[in-house]
């Protein structure tokens, strides 16, 4: 198993500025709240292993979150019906692609700093695994910003996009099971209401021995561990699930995958905490946390590198092999 760190550096404001995020976040919370008012079911067991009882942790603007005590993962405590959830994801995705959000203003910057490195990661991993011109299954709530990049990259023989809720809710039968070489899930596991079923559905669609690329925000990362539910980047439906790195690994293994790479190459942890502190100077932080985020640039950079190296950043990347 490998892990990867990166020296890539870019400011938080170039990809997801906290000020710009707030309007989008409010829309996400309101859409989720409305859906929960129509139907709601409590999640009693952890999506990590399907067994461990969840413990109520607190709420984000009145929407309860729960914690998996064995892995430290954090989950939205209640879910609307599957069809309601699919609607929520669709509405939010459409809103994200409207001119009303910060995403539109930062389109080029997000391509450079968010999507291009992911494409490069996939390219390098394919070369390391000796996979040439694979057929790629991209798991999305459409529209996806990544699809065109994948198609234009020349990396793949074909890119097929599939709705994540269709797979997780078993709405579509795959006409050609086991035909894709690779599945790509960019933060799908963060927002899907049934991560295990989504993974099992994908495994059926990918050739035995194929690869699965997954990214996500993890609760074990520095900014998540420091801020917890106070983290403004944690909200439904985008972060209905915030697995810990351990939880994500357990989930993938339980689905039958073997892990080839588990990395946390995030570059923004320290800046995210620092930005929260800037917005709210009364934010309760330990002396250690405060001294890290208020340190000089060299110290902050060294600490961020340490987080990457030790699997303690909140942005996780995993490459897994589909069971043979």
């Amino acid at each position, binding site marked *: 198993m490998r*892990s990867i760190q*990166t020296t890539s550096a870019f400011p938080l404001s170039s990809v997801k500025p906290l000020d710009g995020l707030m309007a989008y976040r409010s829309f996400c919370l309101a859409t989720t709240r409305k859906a929960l008012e129509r139907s709601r079911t409590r999640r009693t067991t952890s999506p990590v292993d399907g067994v461990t009882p969840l413990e109520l942790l607190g709420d984000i603007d009145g929407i309860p979150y729960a914690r998996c005590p064995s892995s430290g993962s954090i989950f939205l405590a209640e879910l609307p019906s599957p069809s309601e959830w699919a609607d929520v994801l669709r509405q939010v995705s459409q809103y994200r692609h409207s001119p009303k959000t910060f995403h539109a203003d930062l389109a080029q910057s997000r391509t450079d700093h968010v999507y291009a490195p992911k494409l490069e990661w996939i390219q390098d991993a394919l070369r390391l695994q000796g996979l040439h011109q694979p057929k790629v299954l991209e798991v999305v709530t459409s529209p996806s910003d990544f699809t065109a990049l994948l198609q234009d990259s020349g990396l793949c023989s074909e890119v097929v996009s599939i709705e994540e809720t269709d797979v997780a809710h078993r709405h579509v039968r795959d006409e050609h099971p086991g035909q894709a070489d690779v599945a790509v899930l960019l933060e799908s596991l963060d927002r899907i209401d049934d991560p295990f079923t989504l993974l099992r559905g994908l495994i059926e669609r990918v050739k035995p021995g194929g690869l699965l690329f997954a990214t996500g925000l993890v609760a074990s990362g520095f900014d998540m561990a420091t801020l917890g539910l106070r983290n403004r980047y944690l909200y439904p439906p985008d972060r209905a699930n915030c697995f810990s790195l351990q939880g994500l690994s357990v989930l993938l293994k339980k689905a039958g995958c073997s892990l080839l790479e588990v990395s946390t190459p995030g570059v923004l942890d320290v800046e995210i905490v620092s930005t929260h502190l800037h917005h709210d100077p009364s934010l309760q932080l330990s002396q250690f946390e405060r001294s890290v985020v208020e340190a000089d640039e060299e110290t902050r950079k060294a600490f961020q590198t340490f987080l990457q190296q030790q699997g303690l950043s909140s942005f996780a990347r995993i490459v897994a092999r589909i069971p043979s």
Partner: protein
Amino acid sequence: MTQPIRCAIFGFGYMGKIRYEALKKHPEVNKRDIWIVEPDAAQMPRDGAGQPLLKNYLAPHEPIPWKQLDAAFICTPNNVTAELCVQALQECGNVFCEKPPGRNWEDFCRIADVASAIPEHRLVFGFNHRLHPSVQAAKALIGQGGLGEILYIKGTYGKSGGLRYRESWRNNREVAGGGILLDQGIHMLDLVQFFLGPLSVADAILNDSFWHCGVEDNVFVLLRSEDGVPAFLHSSATLWKHTFRLEIGCHDGYLIASGLLSQTGSYGREQLVIGKRQFEDEAMALGNPREEIIQFDRDDSWDKEVNEFIMSVKERRPARHGTLDEARRVMQLIRDVYALSSERQGVMARRA
């Protein structure tokens, strides 16, 4: 071959034990029938009562049960490598030989001559470094679609010797045949060849400046590939911090493999730095490109190496690495480096 493969290990020192562990877990090997031939009984593992744990133990004077063997692993000091290789090739035809393939070019030629007279032989040499995860990853990233063609290679491989360095057979010219070049440097030569193909020696400097064992404790070799790509390596027994570092400069970026997943971990964590070339139009600071660093946590090079040999025996096919040709090219380079050094010393002596 349908039956499990029956093996003997000649020499049960550091390398013999590593091979034994790899063979024990190989599905095609008869685990209860691995013979160990070792002159030093103290090397053999024993239980709490002092009884040998391995039943198939032979001292060198005891007859070797060649008829019961399909393959031999030669893990001995260099001075007996050629003799045992030749005998094993003639008796069972399937031989795995640790590096170096003999003390010198003459030893190697003895092995190669016998091998060429046995058409159905399998002869593999232990150059496991090319199977290390950082090296395999580097290989995958070079060339079309990756970092482009290689511009140069620089390699450093060194150890610190230690209090018993002078006592080791590895530094005794009579037994080993050479110094740090033949001991560790041979791995670096094999790696450069792995990336660049056949090489020639452009220049070399050997030194015995600290240990004074009568063999080189430092060697600097300048090499050139058939396409003119330069390579430089430094192999040392005076690197007080154990070091393995292989830098590969390419058209579109660079790779730095460093550290080795070894039993002691003394070479540091094995990793591969991947840097992509970025000029001012792509990066904020010229000369400080974005790097990705892959950290590896498992070395399966020993298992892969043994597996390739065992499967080549099983499937009666040539091995894909550690071949006689690869060993020949490395031994030619070592021969040329030593010849160049001797020639220089002769000139210096005449001048003096």
